[in-house]
């Protein structure tokens, strides 16, 4: 097995890195910062893609730099730099201070941070097999076998399979005394099979849409996905969808598979419980939230079947870590408790607005971007039903699998989703495959109509790798534990 040259290891344990972080803090403090923190990050990514039987991409990426965040004169400043030497770090600290002073011109009330114990420690994603220790040959073999499985199905016009592995090493230090080293490992993979006719294009994806499913785990996750073993089945479904009947129209029962339930949770619970959105930080871009603080503890968000948590301690999720990017320890936060709106994800600054402490949801997608409140693992907790039972007890409805389109308004109320696959249900049985299914609704009405959630056996941690927020834009990897769940009286129709 060849060692991959591009990936530096043990960055965090380099005294030079720690010295640079200390230098950043000292420089900022000497220039007038009453608070400063520094993150030094090295992020390595392997991407492999096979398309239509050929290796389309083998790419090794490395991204290294430091971000210095300060409060000066009561206002924030931040500078990110990729020059990791004394002069570079001095420049970054000085620029962050200058920027903060400029911010203070339009910042009459000083920033206050909720207290947090300065943490010192280390965290590493537990893995059975380090994905960076698996050869590229073995990885390509998985993709080529997946491609071969899809190619056995007549009518598939485009086949694409990919793997991605991420190793992020970061060192965090603050003027309050936090000193934290973390190594986060991610493994992801998936494939798409596309079939086309003169008037239709149908793509089926596995295990999830958006190119892949991803988790904080090692190579063992890829083996569990069993991409090759599902290639033929998924390709056959794509071909079958070309001639399937259109999804029926009307108000009916909707059952979502775990992947679509995960995205529904992401859009309609995850984003509206980000406290920075609620307070207006994102008003000019991502929007605000219908879950205003006056509703906390009183608002019926969903039915009593619905409990949602933001849990950075749950193993395997893309939002699983030791500490967030403000140095606050990973936590489990109840957002919706048996239907009642119960909590937000917060930061040290926003927690002050509701009189609490940060619950550790500040994350940055890079050394050069500030941490924002981001989802950790926002989960729909398991219920006591099963997919089989839900279908068996449905008189008229559809079972919808794997996201195809998604849209929600800027307060996270009015949504419309489309899925790749649909199954019409009549009298407790799947009766036919249907295509181009759309369903839409309004968040609290929808979750109040939830009358069943599958149990732990069907509950799984899913990964969303394209969550956008912030300016400059940041793309975060977040986790969502979910299981199939059922909703009543939902508007369904075909896209046609």
């Amino acid at each position: 097995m060849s060692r991959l040259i591009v990936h530096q290891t043990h960055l965090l344990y380099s005294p030079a890195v720690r010295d640079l972080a200390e230098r950043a803090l000292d420089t900022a403090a000497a220039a007038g910062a009453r608070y400063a923190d520094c993150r030094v990050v090295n992020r390595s990514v392997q991407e492999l893609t096979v398309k239509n039987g050929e290796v389309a991409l083998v790419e090794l990426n490395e991204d290294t730099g430091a971000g210095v965040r300060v409060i000066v004169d009561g206002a924030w400043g931040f500078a990110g730099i990729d020059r990791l030497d004394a002069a570079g770090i001095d420049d970054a600290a000085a620029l962050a201070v200058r920027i903060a002073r400029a911010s203070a011109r339009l910042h009459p009330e000083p920033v206050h941070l909720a207290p947090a114990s300065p943490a010192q420690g280390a965290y590493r994603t537990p893995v059975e097999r380090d994905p960076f220790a698996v050869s590229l040959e073995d990885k390509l073999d998985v993709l080529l076998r997946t491609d071969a499985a899809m190619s056995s199905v007549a009518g598939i016009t485009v086949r694409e399979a990919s793997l991605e592995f991420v190793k992020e090493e970061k060192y965090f230090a603050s003027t309050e005394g936090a000193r934290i080293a973390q190594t986060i490992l991610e493994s992801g993979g998936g494939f798409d099979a596309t079939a086309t006719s003169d008037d239709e294009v149908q793509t089926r994806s596995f295990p999830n849409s958006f190119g892949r499913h991803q988790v904080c785990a090692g190579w063992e996750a890829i083996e569990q996905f069993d991409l090759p073993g599902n290639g033929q089945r998924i390709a056959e479904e794509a071909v079958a969808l070309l001639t399937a009947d259109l999804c029926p129209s009307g108000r009916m029962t909707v059952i979502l598979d775990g992947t679509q339930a995960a995205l529904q949770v992401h859009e309609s619970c995850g984003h509206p419980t980000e406290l920075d959105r609620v307070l207006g930080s994102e008003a000019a871009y991502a929007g605000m939230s219908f879950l205003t603080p006056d509703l906390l503890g009183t608002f019926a968000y969903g039915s009593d079947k619905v409990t949602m948590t933001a849990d950075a301690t749950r193993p395997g999720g893309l939002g699983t870590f030791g500490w967030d990017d403000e140095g606050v320890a990973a936590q489990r936060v109840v957002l919706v408790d048996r239907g009642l709106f119960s909590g937000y994800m917060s930061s040290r600054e926003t927690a002050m607005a509701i009189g609490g402490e940060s619950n550790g949801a500040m994350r940055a997608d890079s050394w050069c971007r500030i941490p924002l409140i981001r989802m950790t693992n926002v989960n729909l907790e398991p219920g006591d039903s099963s997919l089989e039972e839900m279908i068996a007890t449905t008189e008229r409805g559809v079972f919808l699998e794997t996201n195809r389109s998604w849209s929600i308004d800027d307060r996270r109320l009015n949504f419309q989703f489309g899925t790749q696959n649909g199954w019409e249900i009549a009298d407790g049985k799947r009766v036919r495959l249907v295509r181009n299914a759309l369903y839409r609704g309004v968040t609290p009405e929808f979750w109040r109509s939830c009358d069943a959630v599958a149990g732990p056996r069907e509950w799984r941690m899913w990964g969303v790798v394209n969550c956008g927020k912030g300016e400059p834009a940041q793309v975060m990897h977040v986790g969502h534990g979910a299981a199939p769940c059922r909703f009543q009286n939902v508007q369904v129709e075909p896209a046609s």
Partner: protein
Amino acid sequence: MTTEEAEELLSIATETLGQVTRGQAEVIAVRQQQELTRFAGNVIHQNVAESSLQLRVRVIDDSRVGVAQVRGEVADGPLRVVQAAEQARSLSGRSDPSPLPSPDGVADSPAAYSVATTNTSPEDRAGIAAAVVDAATRQRLEAFGSVSTRTTRTAIVNSNGVRRHAASTQASVITVMRGRSGAGYAAGHSPDITGIDANAVGVEAADTCARNQDATAIDPGEYEVVLTPYAVTDMVEHLAWMGFSALAKQERRSFMHPGSRMMSETVSISDDPADPGSFPFPFDQEGVSSRRVVAIDHGVCAGFLYDTPSARRDGVASTGHSLPQPNTFGPYARHLVMDAGGASPDDLVAAVKRGLFVTRLWYVRDVHPLRTIITGMTREGTFLIENGKIGRAVRDLRFTQSIVDALNDVRGISRERKLALGEDESGVLTPWLHLGRFAFTS
């Protein structure tokens, strides 16, 4: 870009290329600095700057391709990135890789570059934010938004002798103003920060916000609409994503039928990398000169965007619309332009008996690409038009609409156009549109 800066970046790219020991190679060197000042509730709440150097190497030999990319200035960066690319290549499977392009002999046209944008200071950005906030406070509104500047220096060299470099800048002032019960949006974008009138942006948003109060519900259904360029930008961008790429045509997932008239004769849409009204840039990510491609010519599907791999398949020349190779996405439009008409925005509104005026769309997503169906919401300024006049504010609505169908019933196009940013932050130059039908679904 000064000569010294260009030479320095070309020198880094050339040095990196020189580290390649076998086969052919391409190096893309990008030095970027970006600053952004964000405000909310009339206060600067986030204020950031970043700078970086990125090297990307593609190595081709023995029918194998390897790619590596390093961001971060380290002493042995060129050597490390080349070694990684060669390692990726050696472990990759054999395929039929697209060859590297050769120099096309086209002289570089100027990129959109402004020294003033590059030199904008944190204090300058705070001052611009203050100008927008002033426009809000004059009307007792709250301002949210951002002031941003970005300078990108790009050098591309390859073993066939391609040697390109350019510097570009992009500046934006964006605001949402919020009142008691509604909001208004406005934005200005330009290569040159001094070309954006922050006060005018603020006044526009404040005016929309002042009118967008106490909105009332209106029944979903089909309405005539007048769309501002902010909204038209989303439509044009999604239309390009769903069909302008030659790869989409080759994979039979494009809505485009060459030679067929699919839209009103007044509709012409192109990708024009040299249009001075947008963010001109002379070459693509393979170093191939980017040419204007008319995709929709007076309603007729006229042309596709090509990169080297898709051009090779069709036996034609690349149009210079490549993303970094190799990729599975295909050619990409970054300079979309919709032709102007002859009306004023007021003329368009005056021609509507009953319809809706839509300031902005939000969270637009493809629903059925082959039928160009998209969905999304209206946001920050939706008004009822009655008897040719903009009237009361209406609550935001969801639309689900085929773009081709909408553009096949164009009743009017403004002569004035505005530069807006697409979701991918590329510039899109579009007019106001009056459309005969637009389907609002909830």
